[in-house]
């Protein structure tokens, strides 16, 4: 279940076929993963490639496994590089926040650009239960404050 490295890609037959097809079209392989970094007690990740179903599921799995392995308390997801937040991506982000929350981890999404915020509101998407911050710095501040109990939402987890 637990893989030694988060960056080890599984390769099935279907995966190979798809990769070959993509290579023929001059595209990057779909098995690309989203890196997850650790800073203090928190995990930091920046989505810089278009999310599709399989990548999104892989990302969710990688995140949860990394949370388990590192015992992280907070998760920062930077979406500055995402130019379109449709209902699919929203659903993925909301799901990640919910799953992380079940593992005692608070998620903060950072880097929503103005045009993305406008579109989200008009489109009718709601980031239910997700905290957002303007940028990485503010997001980190938010998580640190929460860790210190300033947000009044200390779940009483053990300190490592």
């Amino acid at each position, binding site marked *: 279940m637990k893989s030694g490295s988060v960056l080890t890609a599984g390769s099935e037959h279907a995966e190979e076929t798809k990769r070959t097809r993509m290579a023929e079209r001059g595209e990057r392989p779909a098995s690309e993963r989203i890196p997850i970094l650790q800073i203090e007690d928190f995990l930091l990740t920046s989505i810089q490639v278009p999310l599709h179903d399989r990548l999104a599921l892989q990302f969710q799995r990688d995140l949860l496994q990394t949370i388990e392995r590192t015992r992280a308390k907070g998760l920062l997801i930077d979406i500055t590089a995402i130019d*379109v937040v449709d209902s699919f991506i929203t659903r993925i982000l909301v799901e990640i926040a919910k799953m992380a929350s079940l593992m005692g981890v608070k998620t903060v999404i950072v880097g929503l650009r103005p*045009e993305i915020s406008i579109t989200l509101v008009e489109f009718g998407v709601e980031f239910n239960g997700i905290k957002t911050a303007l940028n990485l710095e503010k997001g980190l501040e938010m998580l640190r404050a929460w860790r210190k109990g300033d947000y009044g939402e200390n779940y009483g987890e053990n300190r490592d």
Partner: protein
Amino acid sequence: MVKIMVKIEIKEEYDIVTARVSAKEEARKLGFGIVDQTRIATAVSELARNIVDYAGEGVIEINIVDKKGVVGGSGSGSSEGRGGDNDIGRGGCLGLEIIAVDNGPGIEDIEKALEDGYSTGGGLGIGLGGVRRLMDEFEIQSKVGEGTKVRVVKWKQI
């Protein structure tokens, strides 16, 4: 006059990205600002995903259209943006038209499909209603067992 610019076959997930990237690029070339580019790209992303999720495959067409008689144009005054002559951009108002067509199962209850919170695909259920809010014009035709055609237009602010 409708000028067909791009036609994208939607067969798998990756085509959704291709479609929205093209739409955004065409919108940018036509002079839309970043907010409208994002609205258009989001709408295209949603329409393309509907094709993949519900119909399996279909086509997305991105066209330039013009509206007659908006800025003293000499056209017939048709609000459809699909007049008969050939003077794109002269005395009219330019827009980007997106047509999404599939031969999928069709939508049984269109009114319901446009309501927020309704989804048969397990998504957020804001797809079509959201697309309608992001764009200036929205038309949908669907027949159960035959397919669905959605046409949306975003007009360029002058």
